[in-house]
């Protein structure tokens, strides 16, 4: 059955309330994108999320929307902090999966001739793929406890850093308040002790990129970006520890949703399992989720330190000549307490972003002071062959999308379709000819992650900019990639 969808703006579409939906859905797409999306199950997932107890405003989806499990990928939903619910599936298994960009003083010419050495150095330094250990070596439970409480700051204290001010340049300074390691199970803790500072696999990556085009000079200057600059982008999350937290909570909730009353029993997809924020289960999940988010920040921070060292070694220069500095770190699988204006009132809500990036606009006190005039940096990776973007948050995001933007290109092909389409092709050679040196632990990952498996992120950012939610600051071109 095709859902009713009506256009309410050049790039905005509404799914009217029907049945048990508590709020309408709203999706940001161009007309051409909506023509393709109309029969996609992801739209039904937007409507399904609108059934969850305590949801306010709209059930939203960003232009990189695609079919997920429970929530659509690209979904945003806010819930009243007192009366609403929390849904672990609305955060995802990879809690605080996110992206960071590290800028350098280097220009393209400084690395072009050595790019193979650089990529190899990254690959040999940063654990990738299945069971490849951690960048720190195994840590004890007491140390893990500190990771879970302190997040990025823990890694900085251990010497893993780009610049001196890395933690200030992470959302929430790289640690969520309320994190409680005691809310994690022994199994989750066990998985965390062996994975701090590891990339993982699937769509996670570390890329060497070059600033290919500056699109907003003022914001680019504020972000420290210049034409031809070498930057490093890292995409990873909370690894097995985060997966375990989500897995155990969804499993418990799936067995006892009806205990929270008929509103909870009627949720249309078991993966949308949720609990009242104020319940013991909801509260326990939030404390564990916040700890897992801190683990993810520590994870990306450790890899940052390792990456800067690896780059210095490959180029045979000192860290001081690299001039590494964290531009920003964003999380795109998260639930956070935030105050937003809703129907003219300031309300505290729990914003779930499942494949969506926070994108606060200029003047917001939650944006680091050095970026406050231009808005929060919004880091949007594309595929490994074409381009990624740095954007800045706009004021419209605060009134339209609970301060949220897209998070990536969005998949176009399923993993199996991608493998089929690339069978027999020499993918490493193809990428090399296209100017991108790739090292990947497995051919399967590479086949599933080829550029054509994804939409062009330029089409996604066209819409997000057209809708006024955020604006493009710089286009980044990949030249070296490591994957799991």
């Amino acid at each position, binding site marked *: 059955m095709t859902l009713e969808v009506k256009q309410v703006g050049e790039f905005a579409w509404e799914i009217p309330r029907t049945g048990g939906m508590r709020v309408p859905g709203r999706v940001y797409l161009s007309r051409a994108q909506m023509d393709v999306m109309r029969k996609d199950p992801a739209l039904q997932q937007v409507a399904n999320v609108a059934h969850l107890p305590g949801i306010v405003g709209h059930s939203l989806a960003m232009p990189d929307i695609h079919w997920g499990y429970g929530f659509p990928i690209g979904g945003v939903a806010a819930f009243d902090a007192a009366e609403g619910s929390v849904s672990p599936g609305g955060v995802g298994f990879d809690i605080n999966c996110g992206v960071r960009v590290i800028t350098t003083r280097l220009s393209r010419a400084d690395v072009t001739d050595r790019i193979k050495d650089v990529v190899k150095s990254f690959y040999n330094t940063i654990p990738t793929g299945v069971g490849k250990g951690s960048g720190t070596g195994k840590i004890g439970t007491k140390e893990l406890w500190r990771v879970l409480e302190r997040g990025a700051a823990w890694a900085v204290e251990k010497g893993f850093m780009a610049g001196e001010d890395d933690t200030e340049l992470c959302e929430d300074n790289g640690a969520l308040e309320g994190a409680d390691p005691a809310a994690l199970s022994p*199994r989750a803790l066990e998985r965390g002790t062996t994975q701090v500072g590891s990339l993982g696999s699937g769509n996670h990556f570390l890329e060497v990129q070059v600033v290919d085009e500056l699109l907003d000079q003022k914001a680019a200057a504020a972000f420290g970006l210049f034409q031809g600059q070498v930057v490093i982008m890292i995409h990873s999350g909370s690894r097995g520890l985060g997966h375990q937290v989500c897995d155990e909570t969804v*499993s418990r909730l799936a*067995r006892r949703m009806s205990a929270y009353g008929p509103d909870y029993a009627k949720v249309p997809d078991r993966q949308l399992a949720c609990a009242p924020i104020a319940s013991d289960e909801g509260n326990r999940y939030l404390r564990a989720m916040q700890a897992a988010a801190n683990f993810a920040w520590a994870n990306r921070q450790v890899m940052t330190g390792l990456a800067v060292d690896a780059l210095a070694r490959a180029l045979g220069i000192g860290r001081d000549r690299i001039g590494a500095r964290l531009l920003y770190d964003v999380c795109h699988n998260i639930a956070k307490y935030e105050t937003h204006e809703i129907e003219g009132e300031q309300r505290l809500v729990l914003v779930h972003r499942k494949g969506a990036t926070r994108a606060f606009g200029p003047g917001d006190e939650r944006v680091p002071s050095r970026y406050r005039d231009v808005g929060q940096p919004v880091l949007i990776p594309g595929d490994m062959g074409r381009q990624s973007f740095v954007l800045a948050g706009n004021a419209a995001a605060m009134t339209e999308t609970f301060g949220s933007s897209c998070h990536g290109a969005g998949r176009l092909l399923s993993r199996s379709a991608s493998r089929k389409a690339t069978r027999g092709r020499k993918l490493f050679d193809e990428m090399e000819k296209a100017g991108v040196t790739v090292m990947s632990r497995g051919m399967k990952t590479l086949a599933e992650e080829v550029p054509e498996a994804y939409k062009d992120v330029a089409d996604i950012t066209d819409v997000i900019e057209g809708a006024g939610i955020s604006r493009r600051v710089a286009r980044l071109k990949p030249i070296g990639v490591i994957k799991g």
Partner: protein
Amino acid sequence: MTSTDKETTPGTATQPLTHPQPYEEISHTADLTIEVQGADPSETLARLVLALADQLCGGGELRAHKEVRIEVEPGDLVIMAIDVLREVLYRFATRGEIPERCGVVRVDESAGTKVVLRMGRYDERLHGGGSDIKAVTYHQPRFEKTPNGVWVARVTLDI
């Protein structure tokens, strides 16, 4: 939900199945959906476990070195099947173990489910083509008898 290592080899399950078993990979944009068929709930569950195993080992040969029993609490068939898969995935993630054979001792909505697995060990040279699966989801799962009498089970895995 519990799993226990057993040093003794004889299984108590009837008609254990050995990897590989037939299954279908259903197209899903971001993740992976697997579907199996069986003559009864036991065969269906065993095939589901071995389908997950096949994804983890990338079709590579598995050499069993130990036996493991998994018991899950009573629930509907979908929830119990997912619980078994979750335990298999946890053992893979923490110990590198992948089921090579699966015997189902009991699938009973009021008494719970019990399976006996013979486990191989992940070896990157043999199993490097496998998928690094994050989790078993509850997104539109199936475990039911179809009108033509065949049992069908389907789950979506997060990659």
